[in-house]
């Protein structure tokens, strides 16, 4: 049986006001995301990738169209069907955002609490959900640090003392600790050097596979899209110009902009 749609965008759009006139950051975005599927959103700077991601994660409200998510009901293995995010209360959305969703920020500093240790960062979501046993929280933090290949001896160090790649790993661990079904990633590998990038991507691929995560990955790096995603959206000036299976889009680009994008990749 085909599993149900997890996340669905229907004519979703977001406009920002500029000199009294609306300027569309992204518009008319349509796609369905299935459980366990990874979708890449590519495009150049200013094409509306991040705005789209924020719309999907309900950090921004849609000005047009809607975003629907299949909310898990209280009973396990049962769902309420697709729910319009705009219809949900703020309490429900905040709960969703720290249980069923993860959000990996481009800059790890934005997604971490820099004034508490790595262990506390990993445990934060669990404590927000009512975990009140220090020993078990610590165990959980250690096991997650191990899974994202962080040195467990540094559990009590502040994230500020970690390297960029380690901070990004910590951020991922902190998001995955509640076993979300959907993770949003905003340029997760930008700003890291190439070898660190490769290791991080490798780890992400493994985790996505192992936990059956669905993910929406925003990136301008086509290699990242190729490595992680099954499907991709190509955006230009706030519009989706092409979407399809990653290999199809990259190997046989149909739209002029996608052809330009693919041909401008440097290969050493």
């Amino acid at each position, binding site marked *: 049986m085909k599993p149900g749609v997890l996340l669905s965008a229907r004519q979703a759009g977001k406009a920002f006001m500029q000199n009294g006139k609306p300027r569309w950051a992204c518009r008319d975005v349509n796609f369905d995301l299935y459980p366990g599927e990874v979708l890449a959103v590519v495009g150049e700077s200013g094409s509306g990738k991040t705005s789209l991601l924020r719309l999907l994660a309900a950090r921004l409200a849609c000005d047009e169209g809607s975003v629907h998510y299949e909310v898990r009901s209280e009973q396990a293995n049962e769902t309420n069907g697709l729910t319009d995010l705009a219809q949900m209360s703020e*309490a429900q959305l905040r709960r969703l955002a720290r249980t069923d969703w993860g959000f990996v920020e481009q800059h790890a500093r934005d997604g971490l609490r820099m004034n*508490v240790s790595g*262990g506390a960062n990993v445990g*934060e979501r669990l*404590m927000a*959900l009512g975990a009140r046993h*220090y020993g078990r929280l610590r165990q959980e933090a250690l096991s997650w640090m191990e899974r994202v290949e962080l040195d467990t001896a540094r559990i009590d160090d502040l994230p500020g003392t970690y390297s960029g790649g380690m901070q990004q790993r910590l951020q991922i661990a902190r998001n995955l600790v509640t076993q979300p079904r959907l993770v949003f990633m905003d340029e997760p590998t930008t700003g890291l050097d190439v070898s660190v990038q490769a290791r991080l991507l490798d780890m992400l691929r493994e985790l996505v596979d192992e936990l059956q995560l669905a993910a929406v990955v925003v990136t301008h790096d086509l290699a990242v899209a190729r490595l992680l995603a099954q499907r991709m959206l190509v955006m230009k000036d706030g519009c989706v110009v092409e979407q399809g299976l990653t290999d199809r889009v990259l190997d046989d680009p149909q739209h002029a902009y996608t052809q330009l994008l693919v041909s401008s990749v440097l290969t050493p």
Partner: protein
Amino acid sequence: MIEQHYNFAFLDERTKKRIRRALLKAVAVPGYQVPFGSREMPFAYGWGTGGVQITASIIGQSDVLKVIDQGADDTTNAVNIRRFFERTTGVASTEITREATLIQTRHRIPEVALTEAQILVYQVPMPEPLARLEPRRRETIKMHALSEYGLMHVRLYEDIAQLGAISRAYDYPVLVNARYLMSPSPIPKFDNPKMHMNPALQLFGAGREKRLYAVPPYTPVRSLDFEDHPFEVQKWEHACALCGATESYLDEMIVDDQGSRLFVCSDSNYCEDRRDGGHVGTQQAVSLRNVVPDQSEPGISSAGGAA
């Protein structure tokens, strides 16, 4: 003695009524911080302007007032506030906890159990328990509204991870009526259990921050903790040097340059009461040496030294 130029209890009747209305709301929603129109008082901020305004709003002709500062009735803050109310209201004041109907306090809850006929007013410097953790006021209001208090536990986790125990010794966060996270004002955590199911009405005022809140009589007040690191109050190896009390909160005073310390009850009225009842302490300071316990001496403290 009474200053004739001022209204009864300094504030005008309308201001007092406004504050009483805010207090009613605070009592109706235990632990919730109610904004109120805090007035300039003839005290500096930090001297208890919030507590003074609450006391001024609820004090009546028949009340008996007691003012405590750090447990004592005769310290600067207590003396000044008591004199302020004596001059502007003419009501009777007392140092005896049992006789008071209205007690304004800073940093302590009296050792003697309070009754239903008493009201305890706290002076609060920082009413928002999440202030140090979340700088945005709007966000903290939202967190209270949705009772998202995981962040406070992150702070406690961090304490245990870095220091081995929850290090906060005063202003220890509590959950009121299983709903609102509340700052108990800077009382030692020793006093936190006294707030739980207390028969007296407890009112909290923060003048600079313009907030007041309340714990109505017989309201559950729980100190936050972890299952495997339960909440504990301070303990002392010594008894009060004056009255021999072992159950009270003790102040530690260094009395000479040899490091001798005198341990005495912080609640001066409680200590006096016990001494009147015939209890006697050692009358001596103890010398504590700052030595690590693994040295060859049997204990780290020994009686003796200058009295």
